[in-house]
């Protein structure tokens, strides 16, 4: 397979005993182009056709800016909450044995499987001012449904499995000896967890955060039920895109979409870079 001419043609290709590099890379690239790059470049093409000034006017429209702020803000907050409770949940599932553990383990995946609209409706019935929990909170002046808080609740729901499922396997790999080493050096339980175990999990936690965050930004189905969708207050960007589309206002829809695309890509790129950096340093998977 590997000949001199081939290797001079493909300079970036490392000689390897594993065959099929060309084929695998070819398939990967065409698949990525077909599934991700073509649709996204269509979007970029569309928005570039608007011209810079039109694009800028559309993108800086106050309603658009508020929608984007709500989308990214709630997704960020929800991902943070998920990191805290997701890590605790994963810890419990990895570290302890108790009756019903398997059931709980399976339940973690429910938000993956459930149509998000179902989640949205269920959460709305719970947290609406006349719902089970909402009716208890409304006398206290706390409103959850139809506010950005409701959006956070919905996003916490859909994002939870991402954190749990990325952290869990790494947690299972933690060497018991590392904990014992900390103990022999005099570390108490709290110090062992906070200074040894959790920092070691940081890359996995970051991945979970990125996934939950990305999911939260793109989430539509569960949010629109509980958000109330008040323009400027609790209207998320994906919904605004749909609204613009229904108005046949394609330029506005593409403009918002393009802004979302750029911000999401930038954030994921940053998170991935941090991860790659920490992985290189700590040598995970090495």
């Amino acid at each position: 397979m590997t000949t001199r001419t081939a290797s001079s043609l493909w300079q970036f290709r490392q000689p390897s005993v594993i065959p099929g590099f060309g084929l695998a890379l070819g398939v990967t690239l065409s698949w990525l182009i077909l599934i991700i790059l073509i649709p996204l470049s269509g979007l970029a093409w569309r928005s570039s056709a608007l011209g810079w000034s039109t694009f800028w006017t559309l993108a800086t429209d106050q309603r658009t800016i508020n929608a984007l702020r709500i989308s990214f803000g709630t997704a960020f907050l929800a991902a943070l909450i998920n990191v805290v409770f997701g890590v605790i949940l994963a810890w419990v599932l990895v570290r302890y044995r108790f009756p019903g553990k398997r059931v709980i383990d399976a339940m973690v995946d429910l938000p993956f499987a459930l149509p998000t609209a179902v989640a949205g409706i269920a959460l709305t019935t719970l947290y609406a001012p006349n719902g089970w929990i909402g009716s208890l909170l409304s006398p206290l002046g706390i409103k959850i449904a139809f506010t950005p808080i409701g959006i956070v609740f919905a996003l916490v729901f859909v994002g939870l499995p991402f954190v749990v499922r990325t952290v869990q396997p790494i947690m299972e790999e933690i060497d018991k000896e590392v904990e014992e080493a900390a103990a022999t050096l005099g570390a108490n339980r709290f110090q062992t967890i906070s200074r040894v175990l959790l920092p070691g999990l940081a890359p996995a936690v970051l991945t979970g955060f990125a996934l939950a965050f990305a999911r939260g930004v793109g989430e539509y189905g569960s949010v629109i039920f509980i958000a109330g969708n008040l323009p400027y207050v609790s209207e998320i960007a994906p919904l605004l895109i749909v609204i613009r589309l229904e108005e046949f206002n394609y330029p506005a829809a593409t403009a918002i979409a393009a802004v979302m695309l750029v911000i999401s890509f930038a954030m994921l790129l940053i998170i991935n870079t941090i991860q790659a950096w920490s992985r290189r340093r700590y040598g995970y998977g090495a």
Partner: protein
Amino acid sequence: MEVRVQNIRKEFSRFPALNDVSLDIRSGELIALLGPSGSGKTTLLRLIAGLESPTEGTVYFGNEDASRKTVQQRNIGFVFQHYALFRHMTVLDNVSFGLTIRPAGRRPAKAEIRKRALELLDLVQLSGLEKRYPAQLSGGQRQRVALARAMAVEPNVLLLDEPFGALDAQVRKELRRWLREIHDRTGHTTVFVTHDQDEALELADRVVVMSKGQIEQIGTPDEIYDTPNSPFVFGFIGQSNILPVRVENGQLCIEGRSIGVSALGEADGPAQLYFRPHDIELLDGPGGCIAGLVTVTRRVAGTRHVELAIDAVNSRVEIELPPEKVTSDHSRVAFRPTRWKLFRD
């Protein structure tokens, strides 16, 4: 600090891993726990550390009963076979860890901790690598970091669990010599576990040979090698040959013929003769010797290993000869053990 283990018994779900083990470790001593896997040597080490708690028995640090103390309170240094370094911390942070987590009252100042960690890194010959992460070090370097980390807390006793087990032979040998040097310089009471007898005999002041949850023999490397007190120790340490013999009138006999070795004071009857391949002398005469036919010869470094078939008792022995002594296959070789031991079933 001296460490005393008294009548320790440890069961893992009814299975006894240690059975009535007692051991006195003198202050500043370097002791090896040597035994095959499953002999309980690691369990004993972990009991001293406090990583396991005994089913029965007591561990004393000095005059203090340490068995009631937790691992954290015992102030020991433990080095694990697979290093168990904190991989998200730099080498310096790893070494400082034990000091930085101390409660504010007992914690040295930051600059002091740094100074001590750097001194230790110097001691383990890793100066200049303090900013590296464990993943960026070789196995031998990692183990040296682990040792520096364990010594940073000024431990009462330094415990090492197969410290060189995961390293390749060359590094191992080098680290062995180096550990001895460090021990001589710092004088920590040190206990290390190994299944490598060369390591134990070369490194330790005293060797504790263990088997099946019990201590077989405690002694200096010389005592262990030259006067093993049980068939197990004889067979486990070094090379050994076993021949079934009979004691008759204070003479060792094979098939009724004396082999020229007198065992005065031994009762008559069957026994097993143990001797080392190099503790023999070659003979010419037809009588008063053990005779066998050469089956295999191998040249191993400075000696020639010759395998003999002793047809009289249907068994094989290996003897070591000087390399210039060439023996052809199937030739007859007669010898007599110069140093031996008898064990009876």
